[in-house]
């Protein structure tokens, strides 16, 4: 496959299922990824705070001191290393932050997301995130350790902004694990707009010439307007279409548009069955 075909400039990617159906997925934007990461880091910080508080309140008891220390050390280790791995190897393949941003992790080759891949992408965080953070903290504690500070910042910048420098929004962990992060938004099934017309007996009807004016592109725009149901937009679109058709029946705008939508869709879908696809109003083929 040519390189040019492989790297589209948008975030839309096609995924072919083993059944041979193309599914279009959209990669998560860098801002959504950053938002998810911030939520996750805050959650980890809060959990760590709670753990420290709980351990601290036990610590007053002399006998339990070493147990508390062990619990804290193991808890810190678990939060730091297992938080991302545990959530991403679940059925949703997303941390809490990613869930909030409606994202999920997916294997780049369309295959299944193995635990190995999840471990690989999250262990890389140790150099991407934890190491520069530790370096920054160290530089701050030492007070103006210029060398460490600037090195840490440069390091963090390279890895932090890596997703912005490739079209697939991959961070180092994604490269190593062969994963990427896609949007996983639930879409609701809308009402079928032609139901309204079927229920309405006095809907206006249209001649074949009037239905030959527009194509699929305009039909989809009309559908969007009807679904948004914005009063002024419906009024404007109805006026435009009436003008184009040269009709003067001034009934209710929405009823008129719904009837025209149903009729036009019927016409164009009838054409599709016959192998005629009319892309837009300029398409005369």
């Amino acid at each position: 496959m040519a390189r040019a075909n492989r790297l589209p400039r948008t975030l839309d990617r096609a995924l072919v299922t083993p059944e041979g159906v193309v599914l279009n997925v959209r990669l998560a934007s860098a801002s959504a990824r950053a938002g998810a990461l911030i939520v996750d880091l805050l959650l980890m910080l809060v959990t760590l705070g709670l753990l420290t508080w709980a351990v601290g309140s036990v610590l007053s008891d002399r006998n339990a001191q070493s147990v508390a220390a062990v619990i804290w050390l193991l808890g810190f280790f678990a939060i730091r290393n297992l938080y991302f791995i545990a959530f991403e190897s679940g059925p949703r393949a997303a941390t809490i932050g990613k869930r909030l941003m409606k994202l999920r992790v997916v294997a780049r080759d369309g295959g299944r997301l193995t635990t190995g891949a999840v471990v690989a992408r999250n262990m890389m965080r140790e150099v991407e995130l934890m190491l520069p953070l530790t370096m920054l903290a160290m530089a701050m504690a030492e007070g103006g350790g210029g060398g460490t500070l600037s090195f840490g910042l440069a390091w963090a910048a390279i890895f932090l902004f890596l997703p912005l420098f490739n079209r697939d929004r991959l961070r180092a962990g994604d490269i190593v694990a062969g994963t990427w992060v896609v949007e996983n938004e639930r879409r609701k099934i809308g009402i079928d707009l032609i139901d309204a017309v079927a229920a309405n007996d006095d809907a206006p009807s249209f001649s074949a010439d009037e239905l030959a004016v527009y194509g699929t592109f305009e039909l989809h725009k009309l559908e969007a307007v009807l679904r948004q149901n914005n009063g002024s937009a419906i009024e404007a679109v109805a006026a435009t279409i009436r003008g184009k058709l040269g009709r003067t029946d001034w009934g209710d705008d929405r009823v008129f548009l719904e009837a025209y939508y149903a009729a036009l869709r019927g016409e164009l879908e009838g054409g599709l069955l016959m192998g005629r696809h009319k892309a837009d109003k300029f398409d005369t083929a």
Partner: protein
Amino acid sequence: MTDTARPLFAVRHFRAEREEDWARLEALLDRVEKRSARRLTDDDLSELPRLYRATLSALSIARETSLDAALIDYLEGLSTRAYFILYSAREPMGVKLRQFARFGLPKAVRGIVPELLVIAALFFASALAGYFLVTADPEWFGAMVDPGLAAGRDMEASAETLRVSLYDPPGQSGLEVFATMLFTHNSRIAILAFALGFAFGVPTLFLVASNGAMLGAFYAAFVPHGLGWGLTGWLMIHGTTEIFAILLAGAAGLHIGRAVAFPGSRARMAAASEAGRRAAKVMVGVVGMMLIAGLLEGFGRQLISQDLPRYAIGIVMLALWLVYFFGGRRGARE
């Protein structure tokens, strides 16, 4: 109107006939995502793939025959969701772990043997170099060993100080805290060695070499006092596990670095991800080994102060690891 009535009816019919299936698939997916896959009945489980295929085929039909953009959008979203869940075949965690321990981990380790040999050679060569350098010029000791870590065990230390550091039980109690600290600290270093492999493996090599040199420098401090044998026992009880784990982590990092630098006939990205997944499996094993090494070092070494049992435990552990990683059937399935 008459000539548009027929397709209108057909399209509405198409949706009405299948809508129930889509809603049912959606409900099943919701239940799977809420981690209650086990609560699905057998009927549900056999229903899931059927509904997925039905939805997928409805999507294909809708794309060709329907101009309802919202419907196609919905079907595409639903199919994608179902696809991700169905093709991420989820076994229960227990089964997965058992499979991993029995087949996955040894196979992954066998996959990085070339890197393991390189790392081991580098480690022991650096140890030798460290030993001879420090023997020739004691000034080198300070360059190779962090003074905080040496804690007085340097070239000027008396034989008595060194002997005490090997055999005397530690003054303070709290072995469990010591063991836990060793575990978390060593795991972090191992993960770092792995993750740094991304930069063509260069930092990983550096990390391994500096650890090897440090080991050599310690030998240079102990051997002149006739404590070489004792130091070996002191190291061996946990070292056969810990150093083995560090070498594995270094090898895992180098494995990624090698795939990134020399992908061979595969695409660079494909090579990197294949190597990354295998190396990550090794790393899960490394963290487990570090846990055992932490216990051996924190408890075993502090409580057992004779050379012979120390050697025995070290050798037995090494043999166990070698048999576990390399003793299995080569053709064993994953």
